[in-house]
């Protein structure tokens, strides 16, 4: 079933359109930076963006920091929100279930497909950003061994590559949290639009609460609390505290919402 879902994902024109649209924003940012040479000052604007004018190889990370807070979660909400509600609305859910595809197996396959979409998007964004960064932006350190960490010290290339992959993994875990919420709502809502919008309102609401001093007591439990903690991977030494808290928090969200999705879907009457 997982293979079927992946094949459906890759064959859908919408998948590729979404990926390209998401990819367009960091590319535009890169081109603008290259043309104007006006980077944000260190500590301002999206993470890493101040550094890319001197070192273009850091642009993939900057691009990730640009798409992670909004674009990627929206796309994941739409993809995972469609999982069950979309099949039900199209009438195909009943034919999938009588093949038979087990209900738990279907949920797992849908979640895997949503993650495959994230991986695909992140890879395309990172690859494009690397090309843009190396060709258009600063290439001062390409010949020199090592890049600059956020803390100002030097990182060797293997270190940088390793930390980049850790950062990608962390970002995917955050998106898995979004996907699990959307999947749950998809088993509840009768329209995929409802499930997607519900998920978006959860993380938009969470981001808003994070800016509020009055929400101090609950902020550590909000789903978007540690989304950007991957920046800490590029400090020297790595600042693990928020990352660990983020992994535990996202893991909990995934477990709770996936369990809720299964509990709801396993005994649901499929009458569409």
């Amino acid at each position, binding site marked *: 079933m997982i293979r*079927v879902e992946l*094949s459906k994902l890759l064959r859908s024109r919408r998948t590729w359109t979404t990926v390209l649209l998401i990819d367009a924003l960091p590319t535009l940012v890169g081109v603008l930076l290259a043309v104007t040479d006006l980077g944000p000052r260190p500590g301002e604007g999206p993470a890493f963006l101040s550094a890319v004018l001197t070192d273009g190889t850091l642009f993939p990370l900057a691009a990730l920091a640009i798409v992670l807070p909004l674009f990627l979660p929206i796309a994941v909400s739409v993809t995972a929100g469609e999982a069950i509600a979309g099949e039900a609305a*199209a009438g*195909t859910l009943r034919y999938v279930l*009588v093949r*038979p*595809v087990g209900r738990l197996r279907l949920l797992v396959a849908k979640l895997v497909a949503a993650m495959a979409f994230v991986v695909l998007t992140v890879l395309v964004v990172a690859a494009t950003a690397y090309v843009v960064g190396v060709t258009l932006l600063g290439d001062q350190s390409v010949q020199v061994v090592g890049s600059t960490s956020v803390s100002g010290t030097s990182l060797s290339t293997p270190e940088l590559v390793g930390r980049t992959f850790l950062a990608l993994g962390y970002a995917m875990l955050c998106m898995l949290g979004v996907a699990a919420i959307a999947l749950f709502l998809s088993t509840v809502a009768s329209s995929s639009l409802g499930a997607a919008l519900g998920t978006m309102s959860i993380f938009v609401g969470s981001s808003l609460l994070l800016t509020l001093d009055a929400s101090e007591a609950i902020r550590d439990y909000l789903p978007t609390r540690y989304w950007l903690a991957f920046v800490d991977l590029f400090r020297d030494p790595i600042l693990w505290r928020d990352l660990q808290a983020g992994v535990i928090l996202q893991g909990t969200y995934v477990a709770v919402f996936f369990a809720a999705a299964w509990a709801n879907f396993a005994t649901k009457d*499929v009458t569409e």
Partner: protein
Amino acid sequence: MSGDTAIRTQGLTKYFGRFEAVSDLSLDVREGDVYGFLGANGSGKTTTVRMLLGLVLATSGEIEVLGRPMPRSGREVLPHVGSMIEGPAAYAHLSGRANLTLFDAMAPRSRRTGRKDRVEETLDRVGLGGVDERPVKNYSLGMRQRLGLAAALLRRPRLLVLDEPTNGLDPQGIRDIRALLLELNADGTTIFVSSHLLTEIEQLCTRVGVLDRGRMVVQEQLAVLRAPTGRILLGTPEPGAALAHLDRLGRSVEQHDDRRLAVRAPDAAQLNAELVRAGIGVDELSVERRSLEDVVLAATSGGNDTFARPSRDVQDAS
């Protein structure tokens, strides 16, 4: 014993909230049957079909399909069941071929080898062998219906469960499907068709069950339901002479208009001989049978999608 039963339910009941959609239903479909499941719109046919396939969970009662309990044994049972429920559905942006390929791949333990052949062969069966690669969203209603049937036939099922299979087909399409179903049945496939079209069931089925407001009101062999009424219908150019002669013979004529008589008599050939011997011409002769329509209308309470307001008298009385 279990080998003889394709579908059996006992006390099957389903409530949606406080609405009782299906009530204490006992279905009995045997292997080799072409079983017609009749009922007006809203009588609970589709809910029953969905319960048989494990899509809707029964409130109470037991279901056995191909000798195994459902929905518990769905993993073992459903691979042998092909179904079409409330119209076909497919992934609209993909071609019919791509859809069948995906559905084939979804089945548990489905092999990749021979998949292409299975798909082409099934397309041929339903008359879509020459279809191009246009996406299903550009299919006509009839083509979608055929594709839905193809998806049901993909694994050469032992049991076919079809809900309104000829919906949206033109007369030629309906005839094609009927021929295909009879051919499959001759090869040993048990067929369970639900429909509100009496003529369709009458032409296809060997056994009939009639559902009315969630209850089974008739379940019988079609041949028994359509038993002779004991009357012979005959047409004659000389009705006056015929009436007089039959009266002499002591046969009771129960109805007559211009030139047609309904005569209570055990044997059509004998009646014919009696009239012809008396020099009275007979140009039409047939054994009267109850039509399925009569049976169904007698057993049911009218349409199930009308909800009449309780009359004032009833309210006053209560």
